[in-house]
């Protein structure tokens, strides 16, 4: 009788042990899956970070180019007033009408530059301009993207 009870108890114990092993196995499998998912997600995050850094660098580069263009535009503007010891006041006294015409044309060009800077569309004429005589000298980089200065 005792042996029979021991046998039953033993079988039951073994059964329970197998069940425990299976449960442990399932837990381990679940953990493994979670780990693999975490690694995949981490890789995705790293990849995204890499793309973000590239995009940020590219954007910085573009803005730096723009800032340098601004500096050059301001220098060109100063040059137009002071080139070869030019005195715009004296010139205006000597050649009033022609300077008035130049100033008005410059004002018109400067106003167009502001329109373009605020997001206005380029005209076909502005886009086609490749010669110095065709460009808007107040802001060539902005107004005439196809013009290449050889200075």
């Amino acid at each position: 009788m005792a042996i029979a009870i021991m046998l039953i108890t033993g079988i039951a114990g073994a059964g329970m042990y197998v069940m425990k092993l299976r449960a442990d196995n399932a837990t381990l499998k679940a953990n493994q899956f979670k780990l693999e998912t975490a690694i995949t997600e981490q890789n995705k995050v790293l990849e995204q970070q890499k793309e973000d850094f590239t995009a940020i660098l590219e954007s910085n580069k573009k803005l730096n180019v723009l800032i340098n263009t601004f500096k050059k535009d301001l220098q060109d503007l100063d040059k137009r007033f002071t080139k070869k010891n030019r005195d715009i006041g004296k010139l205006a006294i000597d050649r009033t009408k022609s300077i008035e015409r130049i100033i008005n044309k410059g004002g018109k060009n400067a106003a167009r530059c502001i329109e373009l800077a605020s997001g206005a569309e380029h005209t076909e004429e502005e886009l086609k301009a490749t010669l110095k005589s065709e460009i808007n000298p107040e802001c060539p980089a902005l107004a005439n993207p196809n013009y290449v200065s050889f200075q």
Partner: protein
Amino acid sequence: MYHFNKIFAIAMIVFLTGCSIGGEKKIKIFSVEKPREKLNYDMPTPLQMEEIQWIIITSENAQEVFKKLEEAGIDPVLFGITDKDFQVLARNFAQIRQKLQETNNLLEEYKKYYEDTENSQ
């Protein structure tokens, strides 16, 4: 009888602890990621500048200029700046234009970075 109690006790322990082997049911938690709504503002409307007429006035042509203004029915008064101040005004305008362009470009870059890619959260 003594052995039977012993075996019975052991069997009971095995059976009772065995209940915990299957483990308890767990609540599953899902997290669904919903992307943030896009702001989608339109870009600012481009400016439309009005034209201004510059008149150069010197000691020699002053009378002629005022006469022409009167003839055209315009008040014979001019708001003047010197040649140096004109240069400053041109520079100031150029700087305002550049700031406008820079701000617009920044806006476009932000839009591109946060909305074009999957960076938007």
